């Protein structure tokens, strides 16, 4: 989230699209009801199904699954053609004025720089035109044909209401009604929040869907304002913490990236990440990359990380490719990955194409699962009749099940969607032999290190030199880990301007990331968490909910990264002169000599407005990117592509170019393309989702949750049900090209057929929560059906859009 949960109460309009907050985030949804009750906010929901969120809405519009870019592209077109733009904001706070390289083009849905054989783009033609000083050229009038605003205008002029309606199946009047609601927030004193979740992430073009939403918000001037923002609703408790701490295979902590195999040279690795400002006077915060990276290496390797050995750069793995989970299971299937430690997740249930996952797991030599529950994955080898029809005699994988405590059985912090690190205390001891995850990991590490010490090995240094000075080496405590993330001074830190002045004594906790240095004098496990456990103690444990400005800015409740800042880019809540856009919801404003207000300013505190320091300090431009010259694998502007499995035969946006049917830059493994189904055999659009009554595959182990939603079902509309002779409560068989499931049919008015350019599209809704372990009735894993392809940038699987057939069972 750019903003945070309680801030939603400040909004004038909530758009829920690509998510179903009332269903999947019921506690957070209370802030929507709060905005409605006390701020007269309206709620608009766009979804293939009339959801629980839609039930609470002021306006609902249906959409075909996977077509959100077409819809939002149409919104952009509407905003530009009806002059519903927050002009001052767009001019000063976005790259609308920037001029793009003349080599950039879009040809029938494919951007310049495409290599079809590799399914990859070379983004060099997407860059800015630079002047002699290396700064991007701009045109303040935004009339230059190659300035971002003009490119944007031209690009989305193709997204007409007629075409949007044909692609999305949204009736034109409904689409325009949504546009009307959204465009009302172009007024500087009105603001919209977008709440989205996996309904945008889990598509082969998921990152770009989210980007399109962000672009709409930028054109309306809704980012950085109270009640505004792009608000990703995180699903798993602490999935935000997972990404913050770099648990994705290509990340280090705090969103720093690992080197690629071509980056063997430390200087080049650092230079590529230490950005140069693209406009004069910009903060360009990533220029501090070396301070964060060196401090991380000091936290990990202590004295073994020296200037001479490039801070132990050679210990870091150099990636030949991304090792995301889809890649991992592909490699297992190829016999190239032989062992797997599965910590706190249940891939057999959670990843696409169950048959492929079973195949991969069956080829492993060993599988370790660490989980509080007996997961499906830990029993993938066991026959559960039709629900898991395998032959255990043919599976040789050795499975180790290590029981862990659950979140309520341990102390620690959880990062919520709004980036708050909230410390919590255990409510009970774990049962039986359960250990906490850090205890298990520490036991493994200490024993591995002993083996290396005894037997040596190919490359023992990264193991032998790992800093491991916990009080009890096999039980690092949550407090020790938290303090390590925050970081500390390794020597007395003196003021660069006055070397006699000691700012922090050796061993003291740093107050924030501004204290971090690139000379090895500081250690910090995760730079964005610096400030969470300072000399003043555990900031995450703070529980003062006083709200002096009355807009939900409780700066003394827990601690928020970065720097306890609650709303990112909050300087944009004021105009270029530093005056709040909305005097009733003041966030950060210029007080005459500094930035002040109800939040920690996202700006150098004394940078006066006339210095033109942009509010988007993490970008080298200082402004937000309507056009992304770098950073995305699949194009600088979002373009509508069909899901890899689509119920329609052509992409109406680029009907003449079959290469632009689905995302041309998405990675597809050999064999998986062949496993995609077509609309001929599988005519219905399918989408998977969660229900309020359950949490993923966990709560089917809980009696009360099993009682309130006991048995697997799928949802179909009345018309499709009638066609198939299915009544509510009948069993139906749902088939994709990868497998089939049998479930009870819920026949509903809430799913209606959509007219997509002459093709009548029915949706089949597939809740995911059942499996063959737990106390709820046994069911099929929904991912028996889903396709093995992910988003071109994140590789998040396309769980939300695929095709199926359905019949009465």
């Amino acid at each position, binding site marked *: 989230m750019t903003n945070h949960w309680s801030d939603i109460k400040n909004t004038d309009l909530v758009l829920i699209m690509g998510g179903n907050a009332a269903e999947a985030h019921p506690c957070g949804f209370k802030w929507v009801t709060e905005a409605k009750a006390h701020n007269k906010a309206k709620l608009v929901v766009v979804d293939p199904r009339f959801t629980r969120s839609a039930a609470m809405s002021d306006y609902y519009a249906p959409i075909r699954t996977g077509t959100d870019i077409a819809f939002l592209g149409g919104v952009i077109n509407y905003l530009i053609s009806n002059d519903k733009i927050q002009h001052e904001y767009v001019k000063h706070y976005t790259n609308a004025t920037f001029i793009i390289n003349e080599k950039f083009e879009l040809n029938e849905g494919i951007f310049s720089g495409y290599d079809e054989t590799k399914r990859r783009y070379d983004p060099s033609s997407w860059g800015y035109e630079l002047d002699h000083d290396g700064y991007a050229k701009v045109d303040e009038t935004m009339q230059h044909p190659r300035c971002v605003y003009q490119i944007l205008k031209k690009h989305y002029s193709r997204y007409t209401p007629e075409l949007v309606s044909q692609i999305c199946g949204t009736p034109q009047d409904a689409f325009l009604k949504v546009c009307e609601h959204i465009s009302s927030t172009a007024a500087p004193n009105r603001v919209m929040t977008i709440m989205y979740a996996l309904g945008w992430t889990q598509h082969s073009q998921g990152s770009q869907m989210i980007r399109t939403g962000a672009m709409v918000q930028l054109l309306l001037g809704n980012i950085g304002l109270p009640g505004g923002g792009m608000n990703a609703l995180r699903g798993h408790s602490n999935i935000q913490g997972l990404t913050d701490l770099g648990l994705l295979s290509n990340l280090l902590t705090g969103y720093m990236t690992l080197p690629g195999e071509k980056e063997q040279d430390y200087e080049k690795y650092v230079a590529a990440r230490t950005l140069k400002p693209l406009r004069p006077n910009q903060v360009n915060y990533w220029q501090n990359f070396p301070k964060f990276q060196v401090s991380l290496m000091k936290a990990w390797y202590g004295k073994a990380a020296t200037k001479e050995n490039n801070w132990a750069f050679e210990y870091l793995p150099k990636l030949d490719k991304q090792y995301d989970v889809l890649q991992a299971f592909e490699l297992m299937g190829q016999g190239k990955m032989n062992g797997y430690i599965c910590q706190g997740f249940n891939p057999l249930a959670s990843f696409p194409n169950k048959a492929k996952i079973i195949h991969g797991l069956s080829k492993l030599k060993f599988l370790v699962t660490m989980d509080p529950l007996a997961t499906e994955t830990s029993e993938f080898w066991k026959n559960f009749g039709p629900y898991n029809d395998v032959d255990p005699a043919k599976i040789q994988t050795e499975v180790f099940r290590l029981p862990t405590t659950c979140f309520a059985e341990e102390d620690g912090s959880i990062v919520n969607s709004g980036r708050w690190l909230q410390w919590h205390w255990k409510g009970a001891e774990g049962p039986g032999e359960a250990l906490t995850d850090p205890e298990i990991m520490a036991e493994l590490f200490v024993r591995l290190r002993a083996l290396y010490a005894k037997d040596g090995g190919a490359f023992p240094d990264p193991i032998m030199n790992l800093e491991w000075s916990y009080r009890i080496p096999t039980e690092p405590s949550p407090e020790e880990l938290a303090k390590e993330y925050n970081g500390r001074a390794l020597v007395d830190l003196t003021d660069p301007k006055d070397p006699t002045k000691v700012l922090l004594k050796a061993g003291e906790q740093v107050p924030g990331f501004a204290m971090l240095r690139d000379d090895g004098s500081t250690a910090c496990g995760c730079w964005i968490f610096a400030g969470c456990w300072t000399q003043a103690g555990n900031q995450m444990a703070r529980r003062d909910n006083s709200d002096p400005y009355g807009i939900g800015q409780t700066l003394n409740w827990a601690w928020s990264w970065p720097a306890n800042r609650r709303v990112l880019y909050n300087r944009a809540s004021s105009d270029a002169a530093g005056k709040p856009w909305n005097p009733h919801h003041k966030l950060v404003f210029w007080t005459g000599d500094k930035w002040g207000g109800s939040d920690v300013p996202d700006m150098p505190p004394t940078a006066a407005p006339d210095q033109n320091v942009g509010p988007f300090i993490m970008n080298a431009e200082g402004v937000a990117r309507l056009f992304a010259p770098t950073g995305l694998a699949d194009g600088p502007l979002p373009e509508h592509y069909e899901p890899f499995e689509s119920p329609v035969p052509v992409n109406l946006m680029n009907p003449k170019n079959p290469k632009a049917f689905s995302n041309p830059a998405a990675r597809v493994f050999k064999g998986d393309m062949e496993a995609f189904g077509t609309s001929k055999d599988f005519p219905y659009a399918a989408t998977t989702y969660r229900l309020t*009554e359950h949490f993923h595959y966990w709560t089917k182990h809980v009696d009360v949750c099993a009682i309130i939603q*006991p048995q697997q079902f799928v949802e179909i509309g009345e018309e499709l049900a009638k066609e198939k002779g299915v009544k509510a409560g009948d069993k139906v068989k749902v088939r994709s090209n990868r497998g089939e499931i049998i479930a009870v049919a819920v026949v509903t008015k809430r799913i209606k057929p959509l007219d997509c350019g002459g093709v009548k599209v029915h949706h089949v809704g597939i809740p995911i929560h059942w499996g063959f372990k737990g106390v709820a009735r046994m069911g099929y894993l929904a991912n028996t059906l889903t396709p093995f392809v992910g988003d071109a940038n994140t590789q998040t699987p396309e769980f939300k859009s695929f095709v199926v057939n359905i019949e009465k069972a």
Partner: protein
Amino acid sequence: MASLQSLDIKQRSATTTSSPSVRRQTEVSKLIDVSKCIGCKACQVACMEWNDIRDEVGVNVGVYDNPPNLTENSWTVMRFTEYENTEANRLEWLIRKDGCMHCADPGCLKACPSPGAIVQYSNGIVDFVQENCIGCGYCVAGCPFDVPRISRKDNKAYKCTLCSDRVAVGLEPACVKTCPTGAITFGSKEDMIEHGQERIVDLKERGFQNAGLYDPPGVGGTHVMYVLQHADRPEIYHGLPNDPSISPTVSLWKGAFKPLALLAMGMTALGGFFHYIKVGRYDVDAHAPDEEHEEEVR
């Protein structure tokens, strides 16, 4: 629930003993704002956990409602109705939390022949005292909302207590405490009516011209009230009675037959007779009206 020392009993079934009246106790009410309810069923779970009741893990019968009906172990269930609002040309998913309404004039209590099996506290809560319950099922017949259920395990009647044990010590009912959206609120009946009126103003501004409070006079008003988007048509909310009142049979029993009620022998015989009819019929017919209704509105 047995008598609670901090709650005065105002009425006691089949008893003429006068009630205590020294303490001043506020009439309470739960207000369920249907327009804010997302049907998450957290209230069902809270109810199960606070009251230590569990139904069996059932089946899906083709709807979101689960368990599909009130039982002796499920004192509250969510009722989902898909309603095509043809006037406004929109679909509405109406989700109503069903359970005991705690009538000011409780039909169950009136019908109950067993002394002290049903009580009404001076704060308005109607409670079943299972140790006094003879399982005759009169309360089932006496209830205009089809709420009480007779347990097959101990043959006693059960229903929502409005968490009288929590309220007695100054806590809100468990469902209220757990509701994530603030759709269920609890307080004095006066305050709840006022809060309901505010909500109605908001709903009218959002185009629900007939929004209103459900506090039906036919049962003397209730201590569980609803804010409805369509208060002119309560029946679309999964058969919420339009104008509930106590069945004439019960009124007759309490009117003309009351003097005879002191004749214990006669009462027992009659009780046995009604028990046979009512409990038998209840088992067979309990689901039928709901299914019929579903066909009509779904």
